[in-house]
C-alpha cells in the first residue's frame, strides 16, 4: 500500500530532473563554438586573423 506522500515525492523528483536536464543543455550550448557567448543568442563563428608586413 502506497504511503500518502508518494505523489509529492514524485513531483519533487520530476522537478529536480527537469532542472538538471535544463542545466546540461545550457552547458552544451556554451561549449558549442557556433553559438553565442553570454546570453545564448546565435552569432557567426569566430576566426583569428593575423596581420604581417612584407616588402620588396
Amino acid at each position, binding site marked *: 500500500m502506497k504511503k500518502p506522500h508518494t505523489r509529492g515525492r514524485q513531483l519533487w523528483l520530476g522537478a529536480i530532473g527537469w532542472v538538471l536536464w535544463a542545466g546540461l543543455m545550457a552547458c552544451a550550448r556554451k561549449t558549442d563554438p557556433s553559438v553565442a557567448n553570454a546570453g545564448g543568442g546565435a552569432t557567426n563563428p569566430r*576566426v583569428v*586573423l*593575423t596581420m*604581417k608586413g612584407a616588402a620588396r
Partner: protein
Amino acid sequence: VKIAAFLMVLFGLAMNAQAVISPTSLKVKIFEMRVSKNTDCSGAVRVFSTSSPTPVDFFSNPDFGSGVISTGTYHCVMFHISDIVSFIPEVSNYEPLCVAGTSFSYDIFESGATSVSPDGVAINGTGTSTIPSEDDPWIYLSDSPTAITTNNGCFQPTKTGTGGPCVMTPLTLLSDQAHSLVMDADLQVEDGGGTCILNPTSPLVISIR
C-alpha cells in the same frame, strides 16, 4: 692610353650610379587595424590596437598583431599609422644625398593632405618632406570600383576630390588565416629637397596578400 682607360673607368662608374634606388629597411608605426564587410569601409571592427607601437620593419616580415573576428568576406582593411616612416638606402646614389646604410625619415602625409578616421574624425596633414611632422592618418584598402592604388593616396575610405582607398582583393575568412600588408618600395628612393626621400610622384604600391 692611360688617360683613355681612366676615362672609361670613370664613365663606367658614372653609368653604374643610379638616380633612383631601393631601400633595405622601411619602418612604420602601426597603431590599429580594423576590417569591414562593406566596400565603403563602414561598420568596421577592430583586429588589434596599441597606443604606443614600436616601428616595424617591413623588410623583416614582422607580425603586426592578430584578433578574433567573425567569419565572412571583408571588403575593406584599414590601418592607423604614423606618417613618419624611416628607410635605409641599399646603395648610395650619385649625388650622393642618399647614403647606403644611413637611416632617413620621410613624412608621407604632408601639409595639405587629408584623412578621416573610421569614426568620421577629420585628420589634416602637417609638415613637409624636409621638415617632417608626425600626424597619425588612416590608410584604407577596399574593393570599391573607385579604389585606385596609384593615385588615391589611400588616406580616405571612399573616393573624394582629394583621394580615396587603395585596391585590395576581398578577404574571405572561414578559418584562422594570416595575411600581409605588402609595400613595394623597389626603386622608390631618390634625392629630393636637399635630402633623401621616398619618391612622392610614384607612391609606394600597397597591397594585401
